[in-house]
């Protein structure tokens, strides 16, 4: 089979575990990211461990104009692209991001750049009438709160964008899955106070792969976050606005 899966934002712990899960199933992998040294290291590791073909390319999220050429070259490099996992995310300093000049980058990477590369992937897969897109959004996009609303707003935008793509690509037989992780044990959360029920990157990788063989369109990981967020979404706004979350 060797159906190639492209991982966008490939150097994070969740992305690495997801690449490993797909590679373990025999998929060839194309890694997209901005850090050449890391991409080369991860690519070598995946190729040694899983004996699949792994290639990588430099993808600069903020450089929207470069996305088209990037995607075309990635497809040419691998011969085909069967699926895409959008794993890039940028939390940054959410206090500083209240200032729009800073928060703009959070929105640019998590939403605008994501929409840009996804639109390119969607057209390609739509024409092939097969394949999948998995977009990693966040539970932070389910409700805006003072501690991380620039990030949350961008992820909310991404969730709606993925929802729209799902609707558009359904007739073409292209699966679009939205993944909403809770707390995951990564560099983004290491040492963060107040963490609970933290999932490992390996768990995330296996469940993201597993989501493709199940029917759910929106997947909370771990599953109980669906209910945690359900409760949070049910809190009436007049009450919610008074909370310190």
């Amino acid at each position, binding site marked *: 089979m060797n159906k190639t899966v492209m991982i966008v934002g490939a150097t*994070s*712990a969740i992305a690495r575990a997801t690449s490993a899960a797909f590679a373990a199933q025999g998929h060839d992998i194309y890694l997209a990211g901005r850090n050449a*040294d890391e991409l080369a290291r991860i690519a070598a*590791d995946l190729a040694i*461990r899983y004996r699949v073909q792994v290639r990588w390319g430099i993808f600069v999220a903020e450089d929207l104009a470069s996305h088209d050429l990037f995607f075309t070259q990635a497809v040419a490099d691998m011969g085909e692209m069967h699926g895409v996992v959008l794993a890039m995310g940028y939390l940054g300093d959410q206090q500083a991001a209240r200032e729009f000049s800073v928060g703009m980058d959070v929105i640019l990477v998590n939403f605008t750049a994501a929409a840009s590369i996804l639109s390119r992937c969607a057209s390609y897969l739509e024409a092939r009438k097969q394949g999948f897109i998995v977009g990693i959004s966040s539970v932070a996009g389910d409700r805006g709160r003072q501690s991380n609303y620039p990030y949350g707003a961008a992820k909310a935008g991404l969730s709606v964008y993925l929802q729209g793509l799902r609707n558009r690509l359904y007739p073409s037989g292209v699966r679009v899955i939205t993944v909403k992780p809770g707390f995951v044990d*990564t*560099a983004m959360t*290491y040492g963060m106070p107040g963490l609970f029920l933290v999932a490992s990157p390996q768990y995330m990788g296996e469940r993201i792969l597993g989501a493709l063989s199940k029917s759910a369109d929106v997947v909370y990981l771990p599953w109980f976050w669906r209910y945690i967020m359900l409760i949070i979404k049910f809190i009436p706004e007049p009450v919610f606005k008074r909370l310190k979350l």
Partner: protein
Amino acid sequence: MSILNQPLSGWGRYPVEICATRRPERYQDLRVTAPVQIARGQGRSYGDAALGEMVILTERVNRMLAFDSVAGTLRAEAGVTLAEILDIIVPQGWFLPVTPGTRFVSLGGCVAADVHGKNHHHDGAFSQHVTAIELILADNSRVTCSATENIDLFWATVGGMGLTGIIGEVSLRLIPISSPYIQVRHHAAANLTETFALFENADIDDAYSVAWIDCLATGKSLGRSVLMTGHHASATDLPSALQAPVKIKPAKSMPFDLPAAVLNPLTVKLFNQYYYNREGSKTRPFFAHYTDYFYPLDGISHWNRLYGKSGFVQYQCVIPTAGAFAAVTALLQKLAASRRPSFLAVLKKLGAQNPGLLSFPLAGYTLALDIPMRDAGVLVLTHELDAIVLAHGGRVYLAKDAVLTPQAFRVMYPRHAEWLRVKAQVDAQGRFASSLSRRLDLGAHHE
């Protein structure tokens, strides 16, 4: 990068210290950021070697970078475990040239402790199969060292307990195998004289050898043991039932701390009697999967909980051949007299020492004992054991140690002065320090 303060210990669970920790995920983040730091892989050293005020957890910097399945060479980041390496190389006909008694150690840890295995008397220690190390120095420059390049730094780094720099990448030569099995033979020895005679008998010797010792046997049974020898089985020797690929059994787990009273002199004595009779009777050769032969304790996750919440010290020493019999006799008598049950006692012949300045192995016999840390009396006992080791020109293994004094250390490691000179050259300010290095006064201390 974020910092998490957490209690850490070595595998012996003594001592426990609250350490600031960083956990880099990118190779470029494996660097010096604090006034003082020490790298930690899987935390499988037993004492305080991987504790300190700032601990860099290398577990996520664990990528395999190059594996040549024709030439049998591997280059990987230091955080990768031997278990991960074996999973890849064994099915492709390769094995580690040297392996310690657990595969859940990091590659960097194997270099830092210059670990040895059951084949040391033939093949030497881990470092002798390392072709290059990329070391991250105190100024964050990266330097390659090997037995032919930056030689002094190489021999100070192997066995150097992470104190010369952060071990970033390791290149290694592998050995060819044609099956995952070891052809094993057991030989029972009724006492220590017989045990030593078996070790010295060239007809019995094999690629690998190690003896389990019943350290509660006394009198004329003192030092009774089962010597376990073996070599890699060739695929053609295997019975057909073993030709199929094996699925490695998932580890059982020790789910809680065993109450201290369970391991007492009586229960350990009963176990040892049973084990001696069972294992000692396997006099005909048999095939054991490599995981069962090399890593019997890896089958039980958290086996260190057997010793209860207060943990244990593992006392491992080596005695030069000439005085080995007398010293091992005295050590076993001292231990038996202390009535402290050691669940695990292992004796092993070691070959010639290598140029590693703080490398543990030397030509002689190494004895390893687990001693439960039940009261301060343990420290009295280990210092008495130290006196026996010193009297016979031996040394204790820093990777296991939690209790050695700096005075004893300096006598045991006569090349420590040379090591300190290299340390002063590459880390004059003492940016790399651990609780072990402070206890043993190894290098300048950054204040």
